[in-house]
């Protein structure tokens, strides 16, 4: 009994708590962009259990305090724990009751320290996070990975989004995107992910945060187009394949 428990531990000794080895229920890509009035973020609502799409109503975009929005991919239970940490952070910030409030840059820095600290203990929170917000007119969009690698940019993505969405954003993102243009751009990226990421589900939310406040859309689906010539006769260039 004892020896099989010990086999599950990573470089551990007697008194150590269990360390995360691999994720169980995971969310896939999150994409975030800056636009004229603030930040737009998109994520689907899938929670995969390995190759099964187990949950289809997982909210992976959440508000943080007055000025920030967090989107998470990776282990959902670790995201829920991060939300608890953030809850406490915002609570203490409010309890100072000094008229000041943590902005997105501060929240991003806090998250970076939390993720890096867990990585140092060999017990990572298995998430890639995107943190966006607006404070005093300044837009901020940053990313943190599970080992603490962090940066800010005009557009960010996690997981497959880095491979499928970032190239689209590099071509088509502009500083002065309107809300409608921003949503269209995000939908284009999400559609691309739907076609090519097997853990994507066709039920997504788009969140918008501006100086005025935050709105997270109701879940909706994207129209997909399967009448591309390449999909009609897929084996025409390679007879015998399927």
């Amino acid at each position: 009994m004892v020896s099989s428990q010990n086999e599950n531990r990573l470089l551990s000794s007697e008194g150590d708590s269990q360390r995360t080895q691999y994720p169980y229920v995971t969310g896939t890509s999150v994409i975030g962009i800056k636009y004229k009035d603030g930040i737009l973020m998109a994520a689907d609502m899938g929670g995969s259990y390995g190759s099964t799409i187990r949950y289809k109503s997982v909210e992976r975009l959440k508000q943080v305090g007055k000025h920030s929005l967090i989107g998470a991919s990776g282990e959902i239970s670790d995201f829920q724990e991060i939300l608890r940490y953030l809850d406490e952070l915002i609570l203490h910030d409010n309890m100072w009751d000094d008229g000041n409030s943590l902005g997105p840059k501060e929240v991003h820095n806090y998250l970076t320290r939390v993720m890096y600290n867990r990585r140092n203990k060999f017990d990572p929170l298995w998430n890639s996070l995107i943190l966006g917000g607006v404070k005093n007119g300044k837009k901020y969009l940053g990313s943190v990975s599970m080992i603490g690698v962090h940066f800010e940019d005009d557009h960010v993505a996690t997981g497959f989004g880095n491979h499928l969405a970032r190239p689209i954003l590099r071509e088509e993102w502009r500083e002065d995107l309107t809300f409608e243009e921003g949503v269209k751009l995000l939908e284009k990226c999400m559609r691309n992910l739907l076609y090519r990421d097997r853990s994507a589900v066709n039920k997504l939310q788009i969140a918008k945060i501006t100086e005025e406040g935050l709105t997270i859309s109701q879940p909706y689906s994207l129209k997909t187009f399967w009448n591309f010539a390449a999909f009609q006769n897929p084996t025409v260039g390679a007879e015998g394949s399927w």
Partner: protein
Amino acid sequence: MTKEHANWSPYDNNGGTCVAIAGADYCVIAADTRMSTGYSILTRDYSKISKLADKSFMASSGFQADVKALQKVLSSRHLIYQHQHNKQMSCPAMAQLLSNTLYYKRFFPYYAFNVLGGLDSEGKGCVFTYDAVGSYERVGYSAQGSGATLITPFLDNQLKSPSPLLLPAKDAVTPLSEAEAVDLVKTCFSSATERDIYTGDSVEIIILNANGVRRETEQLRKD
């Protein structure tokens, strides 16, 4: 019983190249601004250079989270030093602090490849080069990071540094002028960009001299 292996690594290499050249009365510190992971580019304008003190700039490549943590530790130690001694740390002092900080984590290293550049107390350029666990020496010029193997032979050829085996020890700082050194650095980076996939996008160059600090940016190939 076979030991179970980790399926994640606490390290990643976010790439990039750093260079520093010491002159008679100036120092040039440069690093590209690309941050990568695997075969992806995360961002094209990320600064790898950190101002540790008035006369000390550190350029670091490697694992970005460790680099940031290292920069934070050194900044905060410098702040404490200033409170205790009412003056800025000299570049050689910062060099020793960096070495000690790196060795402190000898058995779980900061995966950071550093080049420290600045002016010593006589106003002469000084460059210190490090490995990940704190071995360091003062040199006339150095390159670290993914493009270092491409740049170092080129600098050896161009800067004709005297042999470190000579006695009495000959000064390693280059006789080149500041403008020539900056131009040399730009050439180094455009060449390294051609062949190293992790180097590119743009190069950030800091020039330190008696008049203060100057910053230049030069665009590089983005492929």
